[in-house]
Every structure is written in structure tokens, then in C-alpha cells.
């Protein structure tokens, strides 16, 4: 247990806000109001890695109270339920559902590209949030595989397309809504964040409160995107291998590859700019795929970028607590 101020503890440590006079730890994020919504620009102090002494007792107590509340509230809502969702044509999807408490928005946690709800960070995040009493739905995208339970390798035959994923996520949101959840925050890891953003754009439900993107990396430049588009348009079914997102060798027919490859940086930033709800981006300071320029562009596109300076992708337990703090804080804010 860390009692000093050198690092953020992984447990219920209070959130320490850096003093405003420390410009080095302050990142400005501008939420551009979507059309028809109140534009607002919020400067948020993010959790520092290193904290100087002399922070105010008031802030410390507030953060501590926040975490204590979270800890106490986790006792009753951490039991997971496996829920299935029929998708038609013999397909169905599976998700874990933590009912949580009803006083805060429910969270739908979207895993990374080709991953599952059992992914390390997703699973850990889900368990920790559920333990904090957060109502949580963690679906595993079927990716066209019946009862998929394992990450689908890049080299596997990929028949799924981006829009199917969004549709599947939409079904899950609707499932949540069916559960009486009126406030939903979408949290997506990496590419799951963009899929959550896309879902928000398409769903346009008032229940959706915000989108939190964890490590929303900038995609690489897709090769032969035009050719893929053409092939997809022609309905060609032969398998194609292309680098895609984190895959060096993604195998699938052209429409599948194109559906994901078309989500390039520009499209992502456009989607971000057009986001109908607040979007937060939590990034690690050492995440090389999230360099300062990309963070700037994210902020410029309207996301509230929250930086955890020494973190990379938050798999490291030392930075998981900071991530949780930021998510919980967001939920409280949204709630």
C-alpha cells in the first residue's frame, strides 16, 4: 500500500487533482457540441502520475469519499450473468451482465477489435467496475461466429463487417434499455471505442450519456482501399489478406476488410466531431500509437482527452487504478 505521493495506488486511493498552476499536467479538451446541443468546453484536470505535496484537504477528501462510495456500492452488484442474444440466421451473441446499482448510468463495455469480453483489460475493467456497483454489460461481438468465446485470430476467416458489429452492439444497447436502463455510457477499448462512437452516432438515443474511449489509437493507412472498395462493391468473395488495425495479416473477403479499413483517421475524427454525446478519451502518456499530435487531434475533434502520463495501454495494474478513477469519475459526472 502506497502512502506517499509518488504514484497512484491501484486500490481505492483518492483522486488527486493537480493544481491549476501546473500547466504541464493540464490538457485541455474541447467538447464541441453536436448539432443542436450545447457546446461546452471543459478543462479537466487529469490524474497526475507524480503529485507534489500541499494539495488541498478538500479535494483529497472528496476523492476519497468517491472511492469509498464505490467500494461500498460494489458489494451487491458484482455477480455476473451470462446473457445471450439471438441475432437471427442461427447466430447469437453472448455477454456478461452485471446489474449494478441503479443510481448511476449503466456501462456497456466494448472490447477491442477481434477480442472478447474475456480480454485482459476488458475483463479486469468490467470486474472492477462491477465491484464498484456499476451496472455493466460486456458483450462479445460474434464476428459471424456462433457462440464465439475466444479472440478471433487475424489469420482466421473473417466474414464479419463493421456495420454488423455496430448492429450487434445496438442490439445490446436495446437489450439494456429493455432492462430499464435509461442512462448508458459506452466505454470502448481501442477500436471498440470507435465502434461505440459509431453506435452513438447511429443510435441517437437519449439514454446514451457519453462515450469513453480508452486508448483510441490512430489507425494505420489502409492499402489499396479503393481496390477493396471496388472488390466489395463487386461482391467478390475470395479471401484477401491485408494489414488491418493491429493485424499484420487480416484475412477475409474484401467487404469485410473494407468495412473496417474504411475507418481511417479522418473518418474517425469526423465521427468524433459529429458525436452527439460527450466523448472522453483516456490515453496513456507512453502509448506510442497515441502520440501528442493524435491526442491533439482527438481533442480538437471534440473529445475530452484525459492523459495518464506513464501508462501505455492500461494493462499494467499500476495504471489500471487511474483508468478506473477516470471512468468512475466520468460516470459520476454523467450521473
Amino acid at each position: 500500500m502506497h502512502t506517499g505521493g509518488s504514484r497512484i495506488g491501484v486500490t481505492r486511493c483518492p483522486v488527486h487533482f493537480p493544481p491549476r498552476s501546473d500547466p504541464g499536467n493540464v490538457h485541455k479538451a474541447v467538447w464541441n457540441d453536436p448539432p443542436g446541443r450545447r457546446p461546452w468546453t471543459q478543462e479537466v484536470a487529469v490524474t497526475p502520475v507524480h503529485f507534489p505535496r500541499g494539495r488541498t484537504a478538500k479535494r483529497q477528501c472528496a476523492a476519497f469519499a468517491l472511492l469509498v462510495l464505490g467500494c461500498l456500492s460494489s458489494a451487491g452488484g458484482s455477480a455476473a450473468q451470462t446473457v445471450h442474444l439471438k441475432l437471427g440466421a442461427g447466430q447469437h451473441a453472448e455477454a456478461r451482465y452485471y446489474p449494478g446499482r441503479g443510481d448511476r448510468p449503466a456501462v456497456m463495455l466494448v472490447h477491442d477489435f477481434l477480442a472478447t469480453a474475456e480480454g485482459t483489460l476488458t475483463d479486469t475493467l468490467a470486474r472492477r467496475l462491477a465491484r464498484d456497483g456499476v451496472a455493466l454489460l460486456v458483450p462479445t461481438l460474434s464476428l459471424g461466429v456462433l457462440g464465439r468465446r475466444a479472440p478471433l485470430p487475424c489469420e482466421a476467416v473473417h466474414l464479419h463487417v463493421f456495420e454488423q458489429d455496430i448492429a450487434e452492439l445496438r442490439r445490446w444497447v436495446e437489450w439494456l434499455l429493455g432492462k430499464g436502463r435509461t442512462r448508458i455510457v459506452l466505454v470502448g477499448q481501442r477500436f471498440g471505442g470507435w465502434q461505440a462512437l459509431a453506435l452513438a452516432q447511429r443510435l441517437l438515443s437519449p439514454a446514451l450519456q457519453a462515450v469513453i474511449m480508452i486508448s483510441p489509437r490512430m489507425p494505420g493507412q489502409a492499402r489499396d482501399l479503393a481496390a477493396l472498395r471496388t472488390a466489395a462493391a463487386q461482391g467478390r468473395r475470395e479471401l484477401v489478406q491485408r494489414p488491418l488495425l493491429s493485424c499484420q495479416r487480416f484475412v477475409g473477403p474484401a467487404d469485410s476488410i473494407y468495412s473496417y479499413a474504411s475507418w481511417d483517421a479522418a473518418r474517425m475524427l469526423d465521427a468524433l466531431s459529429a458525436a452527439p454525446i460527450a466523448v472522453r478519451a483516456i490515453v496513456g502518456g507512453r502509448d506510442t500509437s497515441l502520440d501528442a499530435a493524435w491526442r491533439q487531434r482527438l481533442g480538437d475533434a471534440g473529445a475530452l482527452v484525459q492523459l495518464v502520463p506513464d501508462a501505455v495501454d492500461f494493462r499494467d495494474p499500476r495504471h489500471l487504478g487511474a483508468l478506473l478513477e477516470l471512468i468512475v469519475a466520468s460516470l459520476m459526472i454523467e450521473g
Partner: protein
Amino acid sequence: MRLSLTGLIMLIVALGVALFAALGAYTYYQVQSLNTRNAEQQSVAAQAEIAQSVARVLKQAGAHLQTVAEWDEARQQLGTTEYYDYWRTERLPTLKLPNYVVGVELYSQTGNALAADVDIPFTPALRSRDRRPVLVRENGLDYLLLHQSIVNPAAPDELLGVAVLAADLGQALVPPGGFRYAALDSRVTTLPEQARVPSSDITNKIRFQVQANPQVEEFQPLMEVAFVNIVAALVVMLLATYFGITALVGRPLRQLSDHIDELNDKKSHGGNIGAPLVIRELDKVRRSFNDYQSRLEVVHRGLDRKNRRLWKLAHHDPLTDCLNRRAFEDDWKHILELARKSPAGVSLILVDCNHFKAINDTYGHNVGDEVLKGIAATVRKNLQRGDRLYRIASDEFAVIFVDVARDQASDIAKLCLGSIQQHGFTHLGLREPVRISIGVAHSMSGEPTDLKGLYRRANVAMFRAKRPDVPPLAVYTPDMEQNAAVALSSRAASAVDEAIAHGRNICMHYQPVRRLSDRELSYYEALVRLRVDDRLVDPDEFFLSVDTRHLNAELDNAIFGTLLQDLERGVIPEGRGLSINVSGASVVDPDFEQRLEPFTAYLNRHSLLLEITETTLISQLQLASQKLSRLRARGFQIALDDFGNGYSSLRYLADMPVDVVKFDISLVHALCEDTARGRLLAKLVGLLKEPGYKLVAEGVDSDAVAAVVLGLGFDYGQGFLLGMPQELEEVTA
């Protein structure tokens, strides 16, 4: 049974070899039994190993197939078969299935293969819903086919399809580390082509051989090497033991034994055993033996000296410095052997001193001893170096000549005789010459039978030489045997012995002695005769045997007994006298008077006359005179027999108590001649009559003789004219 040390060592070595051979055979038998048991266990273990391997394959392959069946991408392929080939070739290998898996195929829930073309042993369609593993044989290979249903994870009852895994049985059965006990045949199963066997029967269909146990395989040569090493070590050990024991124990003991053998063979009389021995105990024995040997040598030398002294005492006559009779007898035992190597033959000379006893008795033992010493020295002077002179009896000497011719021996004997005759013994006080008799016998042939009789022949010759009418040296000739038979008659000797020992064979004859004046029977002279098988033995014959063997006293004693019996029977008429001949030896015998004691009972009825033979020199004349005086005092009369035919007759008359003098027949006949000798004897008769001696004339065999002797003054006469000797009954008649 006795063993030599080498034999004992060899026996021990042989026993060691035999023991090892037995142990080796036992070990070999045990190893073979172990191998048999091991082979049986190997077989059982191999069977179990095959069964385990089958179970393992089923389990492992089943697990792998389960992985496939639960694989998301497998379900994906069941949903969309469009990219099944890609999946089968690209995706399926990512599962890293074992090498023995020759393939995995997916079948739809209706049993149709997703692949357009399926390889052996897969079938285009699953006809059976039996999902148990089966063993199939296709194209000469044995495959294990496992089936696994693929279901909807969300609805396990919902069958999506079937995954089938084909495994190369031969490859699959071999465990990663290989079989330990079993070895699969090249043809793994006994199945016929295209046969299908359920999993429960797979084990029974597998062909295998029992693999040789590597430990046993390793053990066998190790055992052989160990056995060879042990044999080599044993051989070395046995050889080392053999040579060690031989060198350290055997050789010293053999040395000791050889030394003892040499001592036993008298090749050596002592000496120590060499250098110190390595074995302490043996060295102690050696030292003890040496000490003992040294002491034994001292004792041996002492004993040797004593033996030589004893031998000399036993074989030497201290008086004459000659070899004695024992030496003679010992040497005689070797004479047969010597005779064979002596081409000239063997000669034996016997030298006998005549009347030595008389000399001894007359002049005393000292003079007799000096006579013997003189004879021995004289004979020795005539012998060459190496000739051996023996004294084989009191007055008898013998010389053995080996490889000496008869004539040469005879010449030596003559030299000896001449030397003795010239020697003269007057310095010893002898008034008579010492007469010797020499008998010579020679054995030319050297034959044992001839040699055995050599002594007898020499004796015959010597007795021949003793006769008064022949030269005192006689060389044996066969014609001497007749006379010798008398002296050496075994019949006479036996008769004498029987008479002496048991009083048998004695047959007394009595010759009357009459008064010359009126021819009246005065008394009888008892004359002894010996009867054997109703035949009388010639008196000359048995008397010669008695004299030769010096049995006079013993025979007299036997005669006394017979005479007493005759007196008791009263065969002698009362009032008639009895004359009893007594030898000089009897007179000096200590029991002489006692033996005559029983006759005193008859003195009142008979006058008893003891005739002392004058020809016999009476030794210890004084003692004899005393005894005769005492007998005379008790009533016996003493007569001097054969007067004029012996030694010192007058001396006897002077020194002994004599009542009657009997003139020898030769003197009586001389009296009848008108010669100087006759006249001298007539004077002598007159001289004897003067002191009062009764005179008896022997040889009165005619009236003329009777008249002469009567005229000269003789009182009694005895002869054929007056009466022949007769047996007792005839006398009384």
C-alpha cells in the same frame, strides 16, 4: 590315502574350480530363470503397455479432437463452408496437433463432409451416428478414427456438426519416449483391408513383439564380462594361491620333507635347512627342526659311538681280540652274496684246540685263556689284511676266505698249524703240547646250497683231523662223510637229547667184573646204551655226539635215574657191586653229590663204585678230590678208569681218593708182551699194589691174558672171557 602337498594344493585348486563351476552353473541357472521370468513379465508388461498406449492415444486424440470441436473457427466453418479448404489447410495446423494426426475433417449435422474431397480414411458422409472411436485399415495403413460432436455452446443439445480425427495408429501408439517393453510390428494390426473395429477391441488387434529388456540386454553382457572377469580373477587368484602356497609353504615343507627323506635314506646324517622362511610358523618349524636336528646329531654321534662299542662288544671277543660267533653268524649271512662275486670261491677254516677243557681244568682258566690268545695271535699272523678271524666257541676258531682258492686256503691253514705247533706254550707252564685240529672246506661253485653245507664240511674235516691216527689238518673230501656221520648223526644226537631231557631211549647194559683168582662175579660195570626204534645206537656214535656237545654231565644225570630204577627193581643181585661211570664234568658239577644221594639207600645191599674216566682231565682237581672224599666217606668206592690212557694218571692217583685202578686195555695187552714197555708196566703194577689199590684189568679176553694179569697181581678182570655186556634181564638170568 596319502597326498603330497602339491596334490593337496591341486586338490584345493580343483575343489575351488569345481566350487566355482557349481556356483557358475547355479548362477547361470538363476540368470536363465530370471530371464524367463523377466520375459514373461516383459510380455505382460508389453501387453499392458500397448493397452496403456491405446488408452493414451484415445485420450490424447480425444482431447485434441475436443479442442477442435470446441473451436470457434470450427463452428464458423459449419456455418459457412465457403472457406473450408482455407481453414483446413491454414487454420487447422495452428492447433499444433500431434504428428500422428493425419487429418481432421468436419461433417455437417447431416453427416456430410464439409470438404469436397476427403482423404483416406475419411468418408464423404458419416453413415453411422455411433461416435465411438473405431480402428480402420485402409490401403495398408491402420487408422484410428475419433468422432466428436460440435454443438452450440449456448445450446449443448443443438448439434452443429461432427469433427472427425484420423490418427496413424502405428505412429500414435509409440509414446514420446518410445516403448519400453513392446515393439510394434511393421504391420500394426491384424485387420484385413477396409475392416473396422470398435475401440474396445483395438488392443486385441494390435500386433507387437516383446521388446528385449534393455536392462537385461545390458545385464547379460555385463554378467558375461563380470563372469569372465571373475573367472580371470579366480584363475589369477588360484594361480597366485597355488604359487604362493607352493613358494611359501609347499617348497619349505618339501625341503623339510626331502631333508627328512635324505635322513631316512641315510644319505645325510644331519645338516640344517637353509635360509629363513617367509611364513613365521614354518620358519619356527624350520628352526625347531634345525635345533632338533642338531641335538639329534649329537645324540646320534653318541649313539653311533655306543653302537660301535656295543657292536664291538657284541661281535668281538675281548679275550682273543677276534670276532665272536655272533659276528661269524652275521657275516655268514652275507657270504652268499659275497660268494657270487668271488670266482675263486669261499673257504672256511675251523681251528679247534684239542682237550682245551682239560687244559683249562688242569692249569686253570688263566692258562687256558693265554692258550687261546696264543692260538688266535698265531693264526692271525698268518692271515692277510682283511681276513677275518672268529672265535666261534670256547676253543674253536674259524677263518673265512672269500675269493681264495682251495689250495691257497689249505696252505694258509698249514701255515697256521705249523705256527701253532712251533709257538710252544711251555712258558705258560704247560707240560703237554697244545694240540689243535684244523678242518678246511671249500666251496667253489658259490651255490647257496653248497655254501650252506660249507660249515658242516669244515666241521667234518675238523673231526677227521681230531682222530689220533690222522694228521691234525684235514681238507674236506666227500669220503669223510661216512665217519662224520657218526659224530654228526642227527639220530644219535636226537637220541641223546631224548635221553637227557626225558630219560627215554636209555637202555643199560651191565658187564661183569670177576675176581681173577676164582672167577667169582664181583660187580657189574653199568654201560649206557641208547635204543631208538628197537635198535641200539652205536656207543661210539652217541658218545662222540655227547663229547662234541659237552653233554657228559647231563647224560650222567640221566643214567643215574635209570640206574636207580634198576636198583629199585632189584635187578642187581644183592651182594653184587655196581660200577657207575662218571665223567669229569659231572664230578665238578655243583649238584654231583646231591644227584648221588639216592644211591646211598642201596649201599647196604650193593657196593657202589664210581669210575672216574682218567682220559678226562678233571678241572678243579682239588674240588673234585674233596667231593670224591666225601662220597667215599659215605660208602662209595672210587675207581680211576682207563689208567694209562690219559693225562697225568699218576697225579690223579696222588691227589684223589682212589680205591680201584682200572688198566686200559692197551696197557693190559702191553703187559702181555715181553718188552721194555711190558716190563715197565709190570713194575708199575707192583708199585700200585704196594699202597693197596685194587687193580682191575680190562681186555681179559683169553685165559692167557687172564693168567698174565693174575700173575702180575691184578685183583679183578673184565673182558669177553669173563662176560659180555648184557641187558639187565639177561644178567639176572
